[in-house]
């Protein structure tokens, strides 16, 4: 089901494998098993409503993967999820909980909109980057307060970011309805900004796709934010694995005490990673706002920040994994439309499937992490009597302290 990873399923778990390989195999198997488990649970529901699960899944696969319009739709849907997943993953990597990606991308979209319709007469090469920069700045600004309060005053970021989400929604509603509303729409039920300048819009990917011979339907809004997201994921992967700062981030997440003893300034690392998270979050809404609508409407797509949490969890905070996870969610979303229209199965079944997959994966990773801990302990005991520091698996989910703790 997961497009790229399916091929790796073949080699069985043989008892003779070395621990290193067994671990690698388990890492790959965990998400696949979670998807399988989710599919099983959804099968029960599908049987319950009197349909054939295999037929439904078959239809879902065929509908999502064999039609060019489906492929385009999956890619379009996955684009903001890549940004959202990366944003969440960057905070999780630094043992911080940015539940506030939702609010940060509202503010990012708002700032981008201000520049997109408010600034006139610039060439594309200046206006578009300026608009993107405004979005990043907006997302960062909204992330600033929670991280400062966390590091300076010990305020738990889970609660403060949730609160900031609600405040962002209220600010957006107020500004769109009372301040920025397009005067031309007065008297209509539409609450939206004036139409953006064309120089601020993200260009379509169509010319490029036409050139390579991949035809997407005329209404598809697939745009350059998709390659931008892929590039960002690649850069973040290199940044985390190949740079000194990336090493410091890993040290902070793995063992804060040891990191501090080694001279790493934890607060600085966490501050920068949280702002990075917020900055990326600022870009989440642009796929729809700059790539599709061309104005900011009060009904622009919401909830992408929370989906970003799912994406990051599925990907285990690995930037490259985020791409696969975002595609999976995009695939499920498109498949849900397919089964609803052609099999009469409510698309909510797929929403439930998605939630069960996430639940299963979280449990699977947790059990895996514990298994690794046991393995390490056993290895350490065999090698030398004095116990090694009890580290968890490198990219394990962060264990944040309780509210009010730290600081």
């Amino acid at each position, binding site marked *: 089901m997961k497009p790229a990873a399916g091929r790796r399923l073949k080699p069985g778990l043989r008892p003779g494998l070395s621990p290193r390989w067994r671990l690698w195999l388990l890492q790959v198997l965990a998400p696949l098993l979670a998807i399988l488990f989710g599919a099983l649970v959804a099968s029960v529901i599908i049987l319950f409503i009197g349909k054939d699960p295999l037929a439904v899944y078959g239809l879902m696969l065929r509908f999502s993967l064999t039609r060019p319009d489906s492929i385009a739709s999956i890619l379009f849907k996955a684009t903001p999820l890549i940004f959202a997943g990366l944003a969440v993953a960057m905070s999780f990597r630094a043992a911080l909980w940015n539940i506030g990606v939702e609010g940060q991308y509202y503010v990012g979209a708002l700032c981008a909109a201000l520049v997109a319709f408010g600034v006139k007469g610039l060439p594309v090469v200046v206006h578009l980057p300026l608009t993107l920069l405004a979005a990043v700045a907006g997302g960062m600004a909204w992330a600033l307060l929670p991280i400062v309060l966390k590091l300076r005053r010990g305020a*738990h970021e*889970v609660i403060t970011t949730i609160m900031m989400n*609600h*405040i962002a929604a209220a600010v957006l509603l107020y500004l769109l309805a009372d301040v920025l509303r397009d005067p031309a729409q007065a008297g209509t039920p539409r609450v939206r900004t004036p139409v953006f300048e064309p120089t601020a819009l993200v260009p379509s990917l169509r010319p490029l796709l036409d050139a390579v011979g991949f035809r997407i339907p005329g209404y598809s809004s697939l745009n350059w934010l998709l390659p931008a997201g892929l590039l960002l994921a690649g850069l973040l992967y290199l940044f985390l694995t190949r740079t000194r700062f990336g090493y410091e981030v890993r040290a902070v997440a793995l063992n804060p005490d040891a990191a501090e003893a080694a001279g790493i300034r934890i607060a600085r690392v966490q501050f920068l990673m949280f702002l990075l998270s917020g900055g990326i979050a600022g870009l989440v809404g642009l796929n729809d706002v700059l790539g599709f609508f061309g104005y900011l409407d009060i009904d622009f797509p919401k909830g992408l920040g929370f989906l970003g949490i799912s994406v990051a*969890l599925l990907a285990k905070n690995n930037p490259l994994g985020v791409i696969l996870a975002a595609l999976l969610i995009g695939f499920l979303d498109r498949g849900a439309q397919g089964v609803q229209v052609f099999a009469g199965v409510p698309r909510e079944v797929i929403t439930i499937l998605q939630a069960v997959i996430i*639940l299963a994966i979280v449990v699977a990773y*947790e059990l895996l992490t514990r298994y690794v801990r046991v393995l390490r302990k056993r290895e350490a005991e065999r090698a030398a009597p004095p116990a090694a520091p009890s580290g968890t698996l490198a990219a394990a989910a962060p264990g944040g302290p*309780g509210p009010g703790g730290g600081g």
Partner: protein
Amino acid sequence: METLASLFSLALLASAVRLTVPVLLAALGAVFSERGGVINIGLEGIMIMGTFFGAVGTYYGGPVVGLLAAVAAGVVFSAVHGLLAITLRVDQIISGVVLNMLAVGLARFLNIMLFGVATQSPGIRGFTPLSIPVLRDIPALKPIAAGISPLIPLALALVVAGHWVLVRTTFGLRLRAVGENPLAADTVGVNVFLMRYLGVLISGALAGMAGAYLSIEQGRGYLEGMTQGRGFIALAAMIFGNWWPVGALGASALFGYFDALSLRVVALNVPYQFLNVLPHIVTILVLAGFVRRARPPAADGIPYAKEEQG
């Protein structure tokens, strides 16, 4: 002058009380969960389940059945949180976030199965309202003396009972011990897992009841999104109330008052959105220690693993 008077009118007060109850019930639940050391971000999802099953139960068997159905649904749903967060030791925040997602999909799906549409149930009749015998005959007092939902006195009674349980009973003492120092509690023979499960299940029951109040008493039916983030506001009220039931009552009442005010703020020249976010702003200030020091249970949010100690 008229504006000022409207800020304290009895009608406003009655509306504030009505808006206080759902937040209060869920906040009371949050107190029990976190006193035992388990953060329950999933309260919003549990409340959604409560609104849905409250409406379904009432539709088929009247408000009492509805209330019980909502409580049962809350307990079952929170048991999933317990299983994940306590037994499997999955991170509590993650477990809660995922439960919230699951609840939205589940409520929509079940609503389609039962009523054919995704977002709302048919209208229902709530509890017979109470009224206070003598006071209801005085016209000026009518807004607060008549048309009282029986769940309002029930909620207040639960606050008093909850406080008593936490402070005076062995169970309350053990629950708090488990939230402050599970290892110490374990050494003196307290069953940490059982206590934590009970805390979480109580929070589920109360959050389910909070949802039932919304759909049975306020909405007269289930409507998607009718919780409007009140599960999160309840967490805020719990924090503002310093993890105590009576404190949660005070905070919920304040938030309920803001909420009621925002509905009739036309006279005030303040954007109503500003009043809507006051609880959120207050919560941030409290957490940052600007209002007074927030003091959560010491082991709040930390999973307890018996075999890894010592």
